[in-house]
């Protein structure tokens, strides 16, 4: 059948086949440099050079040196070298400059603190310089604009595998980098989780001393939180969203690369803290307890300060991209639900993370500069810290939850071949969650005695937020209703997600009720609840999303057998672990304890067995990802037969995503609904044929 007139593509159920044919030819042409750039060789910087970008001549600024400039020589290796060198250098300098034996007013030795902080700072600065993050500001200062050739180099054109180890701006490369970085962080957090459960399972002895155990749980918490924030927004948000909205890249490609490398820097800061005493105060590092901890706390604070910048930058990028770069014809009604989910999460991340960064900056200042923001005896307030922290802490869990729920809602129409049930209510759910998320934070503070009369309105807002979350569950089960399900791995994850979300949501209602919270706060019941939401709904959803987009992102199909075995093993273990944990919490086991009453032994043994099963399942899933990435079956361009834009690109996706930017004419989930444009075009064809036949006769 003929393709639609030039300069437009539209959604139809057969587009996948045709576009892959044309698409791959285009990709080949593009990769052979077919974009038609005419430029001088290095050095001469001829002004008046003109580049042909998609056939259009675009005047270029002068070219300085080879395309890419300094970035030709900068990569992860140079970054690590420079980062380590500057860390050691700054640390050594700080050590020399601090008087030997100097202590602060509370007898704490200053040298280790200053050394570590200077080392962290040196690491962050050195790594950023070494990876090329300062290339853009320096260029601006020198008045050298990016030429098209520079931009193509930055985007990793023709660089092969090396582009994954450089400051590459191509959103697809950043997406893959995020995937690897997030998986490594998840693995780190999971490793710590196995250690935690070992300690809690060995109920007759202390396997680790309390200080090591406390730092294991704190680091596990923050590593998992960081990884979960990033696991969907990073890989899928970066790789897929621009394609899903029909754009060529994100709005700010260099900020995109920056947010990724800042994330890498932050995670290394976190891991380094384990060697200097660890983060012994939970992931929420309440003051003033954190003011008593070893220098590892500085590592935590630095991690958060840097991570908040990374998230802020990424959020701005996503918001602007989604607002301004949607394809022509993609009105809000025709925007896929995943885009809404990511948009909502980005908005929440943008307003919430500064609170977190601020709280850690103040805490660091208390520690290093002897201020007393949070020191009660000197006029500070511990409640100030708690409020600042939870102002982030609550929206943050929705930043984790929304993208994975949205990704599930995104893929459900594909696997049920029916439109998303009540698209409007899905949007209402997302908008409701975003709007209410900023009004509920003090439900984490019911028991602090901060403002007892404030408990009433916060209870109201918290119970109300269950309604928009319920809308999302409504949309999910409505889409399942009377639908034939194509049982492939991505959609099976949604069963895990909805099951866990219902349990997590209902137990959340218990906790939102102040009298019940009076018993449950600080017990293992809370731990089980948030694991059900963040891990049960968040992580399993992310796993489904990664399985869904795997063919597009890596060009191979994910091994379904191994992936399913991994997913369901982890699911079974998950129910055992956190189901028993609810029981332990009801019995009265507090949080963050390494030894407890004999009464809780059975629940903890069951939880530990379950945890090892989860670990095994997750390792199998990770093994499936690795093995499929290396040796998986090659994937067609649209293996799931999806109608949305990102699947209308060839695999591997060419640098510019779309040869011609698409124009959208129909809603994204119109499976089972005859395409009106189709019908009109077929009618026109028939009319023309009849006309031609009449003429012939």
């Amino acid at each position, binding site marked *: 059948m003929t393709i639609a007139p030039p300069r437009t593509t539209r959604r139809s159920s057969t587009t996948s086949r045709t576009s892959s044919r044309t698409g791959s030819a285009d990709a080949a042409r593009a990769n052979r440099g077919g974009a038609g750039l005419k430029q001088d060789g290095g050095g001469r910087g001829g002004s008046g050079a003109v580049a042909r970008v998609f056939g259009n001549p675009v005047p270029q600024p002068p070219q300085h040196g080879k395309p890419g400039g300094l970035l030709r020589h900068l990569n992860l290796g140079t970054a690590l070298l420079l980062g380590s060198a500057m860390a050691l250098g700054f640390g050594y300098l700080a050590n020399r400059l601090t008087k030997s034996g100097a202590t602060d007013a*509370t007898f704490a030795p200053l040298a280790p603190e200053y050394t570590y902080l200077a080392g962290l700072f040196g690491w962050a600065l050195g790594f950023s310089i070494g990876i090329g993050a300062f290339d853009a500001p320096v260029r601006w200062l020198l008045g050298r604009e990016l030429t098209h050739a520079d931009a193509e180099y930055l985007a990793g054109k023709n660089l092969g595998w090396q582009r994954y180890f450089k400051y590459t701006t191509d959103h697809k490369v950043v997406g893959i980098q995020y995937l690897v970085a997030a998986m490594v962080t998840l693995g780190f957090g999971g490793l710590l989780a196995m250690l935690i459960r070992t300690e809690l399972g060995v109920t007759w002895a202390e396997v680790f001393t309390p200080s090591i155990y406390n730092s294991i749980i704190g680091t596990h918490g923050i590593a998992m939180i960081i990884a979960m924030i990033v696991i969907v927004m990073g890989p899928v948000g970066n790789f897929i969203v621009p394609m899903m909205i029909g754009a060529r890249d994100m709005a700010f490609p260099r900020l995109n690369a920056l947010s990724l490398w800042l994330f890498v820097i932050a995670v290394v800061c976190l891991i380094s803290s384990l060697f200097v005493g660890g983060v012994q105060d939970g992931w929420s590092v309440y003051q003033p307890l954190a003011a008593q901890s070893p220098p590892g706390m500085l590592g935590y604070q630095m991690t958060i300060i840097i991570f908040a910048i990374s998230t802020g930058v990424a959020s701005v990028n996503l918001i602007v991209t989604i607002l301004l770069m949607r394809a022509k014809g993609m009105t809000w009604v025709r925007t896929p639900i995943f885009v809404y989910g990511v948009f909502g999460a980005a908005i929440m991340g943008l307003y919430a993370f500064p609170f977190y960064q601020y709280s850690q900056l103040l805490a660091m200042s208390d520690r290093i500069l002897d201020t007393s923001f949070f020191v009660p005896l000197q006029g500070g307030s511990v409640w100030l810290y708690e409020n600042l922290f939870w102002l982030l802490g609550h929206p943050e869990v929705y930043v984790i939850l929304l993208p994975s729920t949205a990704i599930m809602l995104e893929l459900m129409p594909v696997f049920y071949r029916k439109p998303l049930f009540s698209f409007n209510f899905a949007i209402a759910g997302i908008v409701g969650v975003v709007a209410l998320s900023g009004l509920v934070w003090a439900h984490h503070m019911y028991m602090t005695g901060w403002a007892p009369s404030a408990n009433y309105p916060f209870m109201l807002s918290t119970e109300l937020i269950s309604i928009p979350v319920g809308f999302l569950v409504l949309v999910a089960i409505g889409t399942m209703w009377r639908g034939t399900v194509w049982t492939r791995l991505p959609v099976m994850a949604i069963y895990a997600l909805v099951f866990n979300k219902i349990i997590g949501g209902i137990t959340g209602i218990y906790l939102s009720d102040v009298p019940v919270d009076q018993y449950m706060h600080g017990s293992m019941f809370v731990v089980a609840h948030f694991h059900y939401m963040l891990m049960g709904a968040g992580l399993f959803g992310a796993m489904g999303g990664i399985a869904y987009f795997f063919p597009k992102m890596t060009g191979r199909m994910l091994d379904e057998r191994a992936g399913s075995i991994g997913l369901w093993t982890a699911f079974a273990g998950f129910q055992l672990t956190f189901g028993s944990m609810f029981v332990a919490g009801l019995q009265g086991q507090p949080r963050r304890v390494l030894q407890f009453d004999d009464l809780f032994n059975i629940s903890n043994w069951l939880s530990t067995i379950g945890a090892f099963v989860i670990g095994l399942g997750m390792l199998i899933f990770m093994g499936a990802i690795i093995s499929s990435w290396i040796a998986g079956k090659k994937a067609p361009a649209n293996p799931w037969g999806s109608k949305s834009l990102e699947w209308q690109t060839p695999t591997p996706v060419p640098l510019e995503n779309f040869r011609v930017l698409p124009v959208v004419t129909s809603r994204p989930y119109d499976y089972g609904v005859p395409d009106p444009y189709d019908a009109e075009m077929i009618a026109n064809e028939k009319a023309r044929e009849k006309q031609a036949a009449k003429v012939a006769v």
Partner: protein
Amino acid sequence: MKRALITLVSVIVGVGIVVGVGYVAFVASEEPAVIVAKPNGTMQTPKGELPHAVLDLSVYPNSSKDVPAPKTANAIQANWLSGQPFYGPSTSIQVPANSVVTINFTQYDGGGTIYNDFFARVHGSMDGTISWNGKSVKSIPQDQMAHTFTVHQYPESTQPYFFLSVPLPQNPPDAKTNKAGFAEQPQQISVTFITGEAGTYIWNCEFPCGDLYQEFGGPMQTRGWMAGTFEVV
């Protein structure tokens, strides 16, 4: 086939990493060797005649050539805790059950004012007193405290409730000290208490003798220095 192999290898490598890191953390968690109270005949108590055991503990203001600092997880922690007080020879203490135990403290450190005067008093000893340089007292003045030895509850409801708190007085600020900073004539405190059935407890110091916020950081939060385990076997 190749895929299955790679998956299997990934899983094995993953398990190996977990076990490896766990082992490293376990080794780093090692606590000082246990010191056992030595049997010392029997003693008459309000509960009848019970076997008697004796234990000697010292409190040092910092480490010295003759008294090395307790083992730490790594060199960085050793640096962080250098110059901080600690209990010796060990903080892992074992005493016999259903006995009467005497602990003799030799206290070499200076001190100050304790924040909570509850711990300036004696709790849980046999007759409510301790012996301070030979004198029998029920409490130490609040502003002459150096450390405490406070044994308290393991979160185990099946073992008997046990609470012992011994205030340890300071060496006065004008006391003569040797080169290492130890008082030349340390304070001698002795406490006698009765143990019940077997159980595991922990102890820590309740005087702000560490650093950072409220001087409860550093060695106060480190096993082997100012906190440890107390087993009744």
